[in-house]
């Protein structure tokens, strides 16, 4: 197995074209404090039936990116440029009516906290069936039957009676299952799962992830999994994109990125994560500092104030020049360190800590 071959496959996709293709996406919010560059020149693809994990700290632009894909930003205060193509259809600048038809049908979203993300005023069945009716024009009866079917598929016991329950009558895990049922009710080709397990117990987390995986296999859905938990990604995704300050800093297959990470930020993320096989005597080492302001980004590499290795870059490019994500395909990282330096540092300093 060569490490170089796989990314080719991914970016080319099984049918040759990716289902979702994002190019040079920028999302800016105008706020009272100034313009927030939440996403800056981001490009990525998702092939049909595959899972892309997007990883990053809070405020790195993961959620914003995906809300932009769904077109859920307030148009008055948000400026979106670049291109988002879903199954060949351009979404940036598409009329809201068009987007409404796609949302829930071709692409759907699973939110982090099912308690707040589900309407407390409507029954689970209604909320699931409503999506179905909207996109298929089914009758109420059909919608209800579909809801029961979906609940069955996501593993809710006694779905015929639980379909009339309200979200508050469900447990956390069941709610997330219902949420998944709702997002899959129209067999969408793309599901964006925004931290789907963060709010759940660890045991339930695994169940939900397994469920997602099963359903994906069953239905051939592409999934974008947003998380700050590399463990979740490792378990579920084929590809990873690590985001920092609105940009992708590293991209590749799960194997590539987790086994041979190239970006100091990724190293930091990995170092801060406990591992079962690691040496318990080595303390976890979180990324120092705090995420940068998206209004006043540090010049050069936005990660430079927190980077332990910037002295190693000759000419101090870290504070003056912003590194591009390279190479253009395959395992890529946006860092001034050259390939050799990256490998050395990882093997000498980082890997031992990871165990």
């Amino acid at each position, binding site marked *: 197995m060569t490490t170089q071959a796989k990314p080719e496959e991914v970016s080319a996709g099984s049918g040759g074209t990716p289902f979702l293709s994002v190019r040079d996406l920028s999302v800016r919010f105008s706020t009272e404090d100034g313009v*927030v560059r939440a996403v800056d020149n981001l490009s990525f693809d998702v092939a049909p039936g595959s899972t892309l994990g997007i990883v990053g700290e809070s*405020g790195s632009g993961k959620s914003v990116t995906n809300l932009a894909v769904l077109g*859920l930003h307030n148009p008055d205060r948000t400026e979106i440029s670049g291109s988002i193509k879903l199954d060949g259809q351009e979404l940036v600048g598409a009329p809201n009516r068009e987007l409404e038809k796609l949302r829930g049908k071709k692409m759907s979203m699973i939110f982090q906290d099912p308690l707040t993300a589900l309407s407390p005023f409507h029954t689970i069945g209604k909320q699931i069936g409503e999506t179905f009716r909207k996109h298929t024009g089914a009758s109420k009866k059909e919608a209800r039957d579909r809801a029961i079917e979906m609940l069955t598929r996501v593993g809710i016991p006694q779905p015929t009676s639980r379909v009339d329950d309200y979200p508050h009558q469900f447990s956390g895990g069941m709610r997330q299952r219902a949420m998944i049922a709702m997002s899959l009710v129209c067999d969408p080709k793309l599901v964006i799962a925004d931290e789907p397990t963060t709010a759940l117990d660890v045991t339930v987390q695994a169940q939900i992830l397994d469920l997602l995986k099963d359903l994906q296999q069953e239905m051939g859905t592409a999934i974008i999994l947003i998380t700050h938990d590399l463990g979740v990604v490792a378990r579920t995704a084929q590809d990873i994109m690590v985001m920092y300050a609105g940009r992708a800093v590293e991209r590749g297959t799960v194997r590539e990125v987790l086994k041979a990470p190239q970006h100091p930020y990724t190293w930091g993320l990995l170092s801060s994560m406990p591992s079962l096989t690691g040496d318990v005597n080595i303390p976890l080492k979180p990324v120092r500092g705090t995420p940068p302001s*998206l209004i006043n980004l540090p010049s050069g590499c936005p990660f430079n104030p927190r980077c332990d290795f910037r002295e190693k870059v000759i000419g101090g490019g870290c504070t003056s020049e912003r590194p591009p994500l390279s190479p253009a395909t395959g395992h890529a990282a946006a860092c001034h360190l050259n390939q050799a330096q990256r490998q050395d540092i990882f093997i000498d300093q980082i890997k031992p800590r990871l165990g």
Partner: protein
Amino acid sequence: MTTPTGATTDGNTSRPGSTSDLADNATTDAPGDPGFRGLSPGQLMWRRFLRDRTGVVSACVVLFFVAVAILAPLISMLYGKNPETHYGQEDVSLLTDSGLPTGPNGGMSGDFWFGLEPGLGRDVLTLLIYGIRTSLVIAVATSLLTTVIGVALGIAAGYLGGKTDYLIGRVIDVLMSFPSQIFLIATMPVVTSLLVSPNEKNPGWLPFVAVTLVLSLLGWMGLARILRGVSLSLREREFIEAAKVTGASPMRIIFKEILPNLWTPILVQSTLALPAFVTAEAGLSYLGVGVSEPTPDWGRMIADAANYLRTDVTFLLFPGLAMVVFVLAFNLLGDSVRDAFDPKTNR
């Protein structure tokens, strides 16, 4: 007139303690306030407030009124008139036989900039600026008193729970069930007679104290209810549990742990209650149970002027306008304070 029984007009009474939500903002779609990282909540609030132009303008207006109230004697000295002298009766050419100013527009002139009061012929401008004092003193005193009562009983009910909570809850229920207008009217003579016996001379503070007491009597329940809810939820929080485990006394928990977390609802509610008390005080004066002569008072001026609506709108113009501006500025300020504390409402 309704007594301010809490911010019933605002939609967010149900979620008063949402400053704690601030931290979550970054993970949701809002970009959060990345520029404010590292600032204390107080500083955050202050900076957010300063950026709210309406808030700053209304704060300036409120400050202007306060300054006028404080500087009233100085202004009146410079202007050369005072609110006690019956100018219209000393100079008979100023008022007609039935007490209306002889001059047009309510007797406005170079001598009397805002005109003359019908009847006694006092100077409207000085009555107005001294009237701010009355309104402010009573509104502030009532706000303070209701806040103290509301905070004490609200926390007691919420934190102590059990029988205390039940008792306070029922007292609130009963007080809220009273038709407030008739209750205020009926209570006033009782309160007055409790303060001063019929054969004693009425001291100058009497109307202030009586009005403040009566307004406070029906004014504290809203705040108490809100604070009860907040402290009820705080009681279950980890840091309170922790304090209990470490053996802190209930008093210490209340003052050191709970109270600091209640400042937001307290401050927001009091700022919103203040203008409500200004109008309530004016309403009492309008009903004839408010502050009596010779203390200048806006409500009484408006009530008087309402009689002259058809004869000369000028009398209503100045106190009416002053009142609307004052209340408006205070309401806007209250909104801004709330927004600064709780940016989520995004008004």
